[in-house]
């Protein structure tokens, strides 16, 4: 296995690509009792149209998420969630627009749990009956999500940013879209996307990396197949479908989310660099230490719940920021003003310097969180870089690059605003 030492951050990463195409990454953490394993596929809610070497196939919204639920069923009638829990592990899974991941944390029986994890994720088993039952359970989950103002404000923003394409649909789909799912749909998607060359296994803990490799080689299929190709539809560029969206729900105060599309940099170091630039740009423009935030906080227009993030999915990327405010339009107007100011003057050097130092400290602390680290390593692999490279790349970024990023990406006309307002009673 390849060993990479990062003495400055006291981390060691072991990596290897198996003959079947799977990448295995092990971040060794001596002295820890618990271990964490994450087995992920480069497949999410946005991957609706694909080819596995043959004809192009279209799948309904919600398949990736449905598959995530159903994979826990084993052919012997057992359930992997129970098997892992009964063996003292804490298992879970999640589906995003671009990734589906299955993970567990355990303080004992790691190898046994790893075997269970690799086994159940690579063993598709679906029946008419179990699919029908899951449609009921997921239907409930969808209803619960639909009651959530956070979900509604987000989906409406996605529809402002994307005129067409899979990002307009929820990862979980709708009750109607999942009604179209059959066992055949699931088998087909599993075969295409749960292909080791489209996947990554990340382990964090005081484990023996060679032993992890050995287990993976034993359990997973030996066959190598090329990863599937996806079609996200035509890119509409940076033009908005619409600039505003609004919905009324049972909320105590307006919830808002604004954002813009970002043309994703090519995979590899350019993408890592872009992600860090976006983060620093956002922290300087609207982070908790920024003039914009501090001013609006004092005016009572923003609170500590105001957050931002950048997501890459569906062949695109977008920047989002939001929270609660009694006057989202005022916040948006203040943002436009601040953008104009920074476009003209550039980012303040001293502010940038402090943000860079702060981000370094934060990234260092994040290494303690096995869950976060596992996810970062997995997503990094799918984006073509190693998560630990964040430190040297961050070091190389200067203020001018951040100002340039803002001027080329955060153009005022690219921003849309989505609001959920309280229902009139």
């Amino acid at each position, binding site marked *: 296995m390849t060993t990479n030492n990062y003495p400055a*951050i*006291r981390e060691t990463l072991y990596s290897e690509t198996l003959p079947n195409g799977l990448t295995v990454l092990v971040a060794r953490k001596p*002295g*820890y*009792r*618990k271990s964490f394993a994450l087995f992920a596929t480069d497949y999410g809610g946005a991957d609706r149209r694909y080819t596995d070497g043959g004809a192009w196939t279209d799948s309904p919204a919600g398949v990736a998420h449905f598959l995530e639920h159903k994979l826990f069923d084993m052919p012997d009638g057992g*359930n992997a*969630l*129970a098997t892992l*829990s*009964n*063996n*003292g*592990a*804490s*298992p879970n899974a999640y589906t995003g627009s671009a990734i589906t991941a299955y993970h567990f*944390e*355990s*303080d*004992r029986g790691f190898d046994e749990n790893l075997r269970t994890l690799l086994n159940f994720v690579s063993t598709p088993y679906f029946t008419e009956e179990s699919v029908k*039952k899951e449609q*009921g*359970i997921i239907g*409930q*989950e969808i*209803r*619960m999500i639909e*009651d*959530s*103002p956070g979900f509604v404000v987000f989906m409406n923003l996605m529809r402002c940013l994307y005129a067409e394409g899979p990002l307009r649909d929820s990862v979980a789909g709708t009750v109607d879209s999942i009604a179209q799912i059959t066992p055949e749909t699931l088998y087909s998607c599993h075969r295409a996307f749960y292909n080791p060359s489209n996947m990554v296994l990340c382990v964090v803990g005081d484990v023996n990396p060679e032993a992890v490799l050995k287990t993976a080689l034993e359990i997973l299929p030996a066959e190598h197949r090329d990863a599937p190709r996806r079609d996200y539809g035509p890119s509409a560029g940076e033009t908005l479908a619409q600039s505003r969206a609004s919905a009324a*729900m*049972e*909320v*105590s*105060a307006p919830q808002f989310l604004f954002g813009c599309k970002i043309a994703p940099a090519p995979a590899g170091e350019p993408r890592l660099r872009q992600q860090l630039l976006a983060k620093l740009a956002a922290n300087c423009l609207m982070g*908790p*230490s920024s*003039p914009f935030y*501090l001013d609006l*906080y*004092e005016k*009572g227009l923003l*609170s500590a719940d105001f957050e931002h993030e950048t997501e890459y999915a569906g062949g695109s990327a977008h920047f989002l920021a939001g929270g*609660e405010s*009694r006057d989202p339009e005022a916040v948006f107007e203040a943002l436009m003003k601040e953008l104009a100011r920074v476009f003209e003057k550039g980012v303040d050097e001293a502010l940038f310097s*402090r*943000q860079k*130092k*702060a*981000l*370094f*400290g*934060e990234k*260092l*602390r994040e*290494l*303690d*969180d*096995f869950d976060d680290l596992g996810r970062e390593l997995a997503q990094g692999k799918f984006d073509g870089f190693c998560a630990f490279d964040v430190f040297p790349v961050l070091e190389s970024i200067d203020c001018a690059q951040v100002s340039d990023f803002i001027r080329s990406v955060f153009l005022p006309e690219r921003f849309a605003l989505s609001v959920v307002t309280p*229902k009139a009673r």
Partner: protein
Amino acid sequence: MDVLRKEILPFVALTCLKTDRFKTACMSLNLLTGLTRETASQNALIPGVLRRGTVSHPDMDSLARALDELYGAKIEPAVRKLGEIQSIGFCAEFTDDAFLPPGSRVAERIAALMGELLISPNTRGGLFLPAYVDGERQKLIERIQGRMNEKRGYSLMRLREFMCPFEDYAVDVFGSVDQAEAIGYQKLTKHYKAILAASPIEIFYIGSLSFETVEGALKAALLNLPRGEADTELGTDIRMNSVEEGPRYFTEVLDVTQGKLAVGFRLGKCMENPDLAALRVFNAIYGGSVTSKLFMNVREKLSLCYFASSFLDLFKGLMLVSSGIEFEKYDQALSEILAQLDAVRTGDFTAEDLTYAKKYVSSSLASIEDSPAELESFYLAHTVMGEDCSPMDLSLLAESVTAGEVTEIARGIECDAVYFLKGITEEETHDDQ
């Protein structure tokens, strides 16, 4: 990991968990005071007001610069409910000095800053700045009003209110809008000075520094901490029985698409001498894990709901069950939730079920030792409960819990209240006609 708790100033205790493993260090400073309807909002407001500025860092901009320079350290107001005790103060998260350039001394500077935030706020004429109080009060009100946005948490809050109307436990950790609206800067300053002098203070530190170093930094930081008559009567009243013979039922209607059913139980007899490990194993069997009776039956077998789980409030001696259901399934779901508890009472679970539950509890407890934030939370809670044990201690005890201990706990439990949040139905919309 070395754990040491000692009083470092009158009624100020420091618990120091020394370890080299983490890149993240934590420090929290907590004033303990009784949770009451009259003072909850004032107490909840204080950390936010203090956080707005100190004598040497008079505004948030100045504080932000100082924290960013300390490698992005965070100090956030902390307002927590521990049964009928309200804990207010600050939680700091920062990079451990062992991973920073020598001489950074972040931990000591954080201790100094926290001391300043607590005892040297930015004032004028000895009073809090009205703008700071007004601003934070408004945010507190918005936070209280925001409770209804997340329906699961909201349904549990309402259950507590209905179940314990004459107990301080029903008071929300942020108080109420009415109480908050009545707060002015003069009244708040007076209240702050009073609790600053009277509240026992619990400080927690997790990181690579020694007890002596942290103690030194804190004693310097808290040099001018006023100490008067300490409020040593703090505690939570544990009611053993339900309020009435049978459960009380409450229903609320909001525009929701999924119903929320919350059921409240008094743990009863087992709280006379609580066995923390056995209680956790009981909860794992009944509804606190993915192999629990609630999850396997109410969710998996009967598909009655998307989630159904139980959790214990060991400060107050309660068990709360929370589930998301379709409106029509109310009777069935409630019936099943109660039936599963009966099953545990009669020992209707296998040796395997018990083994799995014990493993799950033992593992969860052990993994607390791997997270600074979880350690802080664990030690604050157990210190307040008067329990002197580590997560590992409980983890080992969990492995020897017996079926008899589990059924004994279950037999003493009584259902006290049921709360159902449902959506607007056809009949309700046509009520006026």
